[in-house]
């Protein structure tokens, strides 16, 4: 404690930036959402980029002061706020990488929107920056009520992003996304209130050590799981995800897959495991079963998709199944693998959505059948697409491999059948990803419109290449991540035993 409140600065920098952008726009244009000329809108995007990049720099600065060897919470800030509920933020080895992932992806999202968003750009930038604050708040909050507030508040900007800048069925998708997630979160609220009253504190550190009676744990666990399972998402409550992904603009899909889904896994690790260990053990077989169903079933569903984004959305559900598997293996390998898989999927799925966005911006269709033979016109694109296809399949040398193998090893130690089922999913993922790749990139050009499609431009490369580099880097040197997450993973597991 003491010193510069770096975590709060990281969390609220985007929000402050958003307010400044709104203020400046109203001052200069009279109203910040009038029909903008192209030039003005670029200014808003540029401002958003600068702010989100500054946030990234700030989060890196926070990371530099972060001690990877310490297990507990660091850079903690606590201020009195509302009775027993305090404003308390801080990071540990679990939240720090996720914060970095968030601050890293947001500028990429804004940059990726450079050529694809032309209407109401200022509001778009503001929505993204506000969303970034809420996402960072979720990971940084060390008070369960504060966590809940950020968790729920994030729905509003995402609702607007899907609903305003989305595709044809955007309204339906936005409502489905909102109401689905909200129902889950409100059940969590019931549990939060109960825990708050039982423990007399909403401090996560206190709650971690508070021993809830086993039968109470079961209910609390279920209420939390209702929220996190929807967010993750787990089969069978995943159906909002394909709709939301398909309708959201490219950057919205990126942030959805890259960060919002991670909140589910983060929630399980931060709350369900350490606070309700008995219930977690009780539900372990059920969670394994759901994870395996998710992996196998959604992989098969993904295979039959005709829409590229939908395919990747289902593949996300499958990959999140590995996260569930790893988390509920309750051993170090599995939990570390789950955290790694979340980060890795954050990079890979984001990149895949960007890659779909590249051709969508040119052709305005996501039908797989409309493509074919892209390699002849877009060699660079084909190369990057290949890399991420392989990463999504889990090819050794990419980060996808590390996450999948570790979660499966963890799962194997806990329940062999679960790992066996998950391994099936790895095969299926090769099937659907390679099919997708073959049908879009290889073959003859059948669609005449594809004849003058251009390869990736500089902006698109700037967006995707960093993701590619990190995917390979973490694939080759996963210890870069493990060194950070090790302490946190062990701490969670020791809390399960001790508490």
């Amino acid at each position, binding site marked *: 404690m003491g010193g510069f409140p770096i975590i709060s600065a990281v969390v609220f920098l985007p929000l402050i930036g958003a307010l400044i952008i709104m203020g400046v726009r109203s001052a200069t244009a009279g*109203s910040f*959402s009038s029909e903008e000329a192209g030039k003005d809108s670029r200014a808003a995007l540029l401002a958003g980029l600068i702010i989100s990049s500054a946030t990234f720099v700030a989060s890196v600065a926070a990371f530099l002061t972060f001690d990877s060897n310490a297990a507990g919470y660091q850079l903690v800030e606590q201020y009195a*706020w509302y009775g027993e509920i305090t404003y308390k933020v801080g990071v540990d080895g679990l939240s720090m990488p996720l914060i970095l992932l968030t601050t890293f992806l947001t500028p990429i999202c804004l940059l990726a929107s450079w050529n694809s968003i032309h209407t109401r750009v200022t509001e778009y930038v503001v929505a993204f920056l506000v969303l970034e604050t*809420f996402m960072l708040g979720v990971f940084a909050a060390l008070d369960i009520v504060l966590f809940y507030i950020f968790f729920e508040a994030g729905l509003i900007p995402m609702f607007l992003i899907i*609903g*305003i800048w989305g595709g044809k069925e*955007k309204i339906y998708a*936005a409502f489905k996304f909102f109401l689905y997630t909200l129902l889950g979160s409100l059940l969590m609220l019931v549990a939060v209130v109960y825990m708050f009253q039982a423990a007399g504190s909403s401090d996560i550190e206190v709650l971690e050590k508070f021993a809830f009676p086993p039968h109470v744990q079961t209910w609390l666990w279920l209420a939390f799981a209702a929220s996190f399972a929807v967010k993750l998402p787990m089969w069978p409550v995943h159906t909002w995800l394909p709709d939301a992904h398909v309708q959201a603009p490219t950057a919205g899909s990126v942030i959805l897959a890259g960060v919002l889904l991670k909140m589910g896994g983060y929630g399980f690790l931060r709350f369900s495991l350490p606070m309700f260990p008995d219930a977690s053990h009780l539900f372990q077989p059920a969670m394994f079963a759901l994870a395996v169903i998710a992996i196998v079933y959604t992989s098969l569903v993904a295979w039959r998709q005709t829409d590229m984004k939908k395919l990747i959305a289902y593949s996300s559900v499958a990959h999140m199944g590995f996260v569930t598997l790893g988390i509920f293996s309750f051993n170090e390998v599995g939990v570390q693998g789950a955290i790694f898989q979340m980060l890795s999927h954050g990079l890979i799925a984001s990149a895949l959505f960007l890659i779909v966005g590249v051709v969508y911006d040119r052709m305005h269709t996501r039908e797989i059948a409309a493509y074919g033979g892209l390699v002849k016109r877009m060699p660079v694109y084909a190369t990057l697409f290949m890399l991420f296809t392989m990463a999504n399949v889990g090819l050794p040398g990419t980060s996808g491999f590390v996450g999948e193998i570790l979660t499966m090893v963890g799962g194997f130690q806990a329940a062999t059948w679960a790992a066996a089922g998950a391994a099936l999913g790895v095969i299926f993922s090769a099937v659907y990803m390679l099919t997708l790749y073959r049908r879009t990139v290889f073959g003859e050009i059948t669609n005449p419109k594809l004849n003058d499609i251009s390869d990736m431009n500089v902006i698109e490369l700037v967006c995707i290449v960093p993701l590619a580099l990190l995917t390979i880097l973490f694939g080759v040197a996963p210890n870069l991540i493990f060194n950070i997450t090790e302490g946190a993973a062990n701490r969670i597991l020791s809390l399960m035993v001790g508490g």
Partner: protein
Amino acid sequence: MLDYTAMIVAIGPELWLAAAGLLGVLLGAILKDRFNALSFKYGALALFGAAALSLMFYQGGEAFGGLVKTNTFVNFAKFVSFAVGGFALIMSEGFLKRHDTIRYEYVLLTLFASLGMGMILSAADLMTLYMGIETLSLSSYVLAAFHRDSARSSEAGLKYFVLGALASGMLLYGASLVYGFSGTTNFAGISSSAPSIGLMFGMVLMIVGLAFKISAAPMHVWTPDVYEGAPTPVGAFFASAPKMASMVVFANVMFTAFGDVMDQWQLIVAIIAGLSMIIGSFGALTQTNVKRLLGYSSIANVGYALVAVAAGQASGAGALLIFMTLYVVSSLGLFAGVLAMRRRGGMVESIDELGGLMSSRPWLAIALSILIFSIAGLPPFGGFFGKWEVFNAGIEAGLLPLAIILVVSSVVSLGYYLRIVKIMWFDEPKERFESIDGSVTLTVLASAFVAGILFLVFINQLSQWAYDAALGLAS
């Protein structure tokens, strides 16, 4: 001999309002039409003065041999009711001017209705309670029918009157039973008398009568019609100041007169609360008229507030004050938003008319969205804490089924709240609304700021005040 100091300490704001109202009548008689425009400032000043007086005599006292007794709990409610009443009056002026119905009677009726609010809040006796309720109700009936040339307004006034009279009858019947079986009309006396079947009958009838006044289901049917038919500023008034006052009175009567027999009424209040939440939130789903929608939304919100009442004095009193304060501030702001919906010289009331408001009037749209999210109880806005408190109180009192209904109806209500947001943000822009009065814009922005953001940061302060105020009940 009357003790004037004790009298002023106990009911200073009411004396002030009665004097202001009567002086207004005189001024009206002397100045005639010249008083019309001036009267709104006069009335608002009177109300703000009454609000200030309720703070001045915040600790309250007892007077008239126990007929009135005030404490911090009711004075908190008085302050909020009078203050929002003042704002409701200020923003009415422009509307009435445009409809050529700007008359000082409107102000005087508002003042007398406010006097009634003060009286019921101060009441410590069934007689004062009934007189206050009638003062409030009779003024309200006339206000609802204030646009007497409009069929809708007259219908609203008549409907309100007929049903209101029925409810008053129930209340009176209940009160007489209570008197008959306890032998006293004083709250403290009723509380200390031995419970009997007859007393319980009386209590239930009184609950029915009071439930009508707060528009709780199943005594809610008048609400959407009256909200829709009454002139919009009247709706804004109904949804804010008297709502706060009646809700707190309901709690006050339950806690003080029937505090010892809570086991007898807790289930009744809980059922009323559950029904109100369900009927309010499901009823609003299909509404297309924004005022009707707000009517149903107010029924649902009364249901939430009743959860706090059902939780009992210890857990619920403070929560009730916090919830209602946040609610009436947001509610006033939303009605101010409705007042801004003017096109080609007339008011439009369909929700679709808000289409594309984000493009035509972004700040209004943002403020309204904040208010909607706040009233829906969605974090990070202030309204979340209102629901949080109520929820907390409900669970603390072991009312888990009610808490679950609260959660479910919150999700359902998001269905229609989100629809408004959707229309404002996603739909194609419609023609721009006509220019809005400064006072209306100010009310929308200010209430969005206060309910949505100020209370988010300073919620601790508000809850401190409310919980300290609730302690006044115990003394």
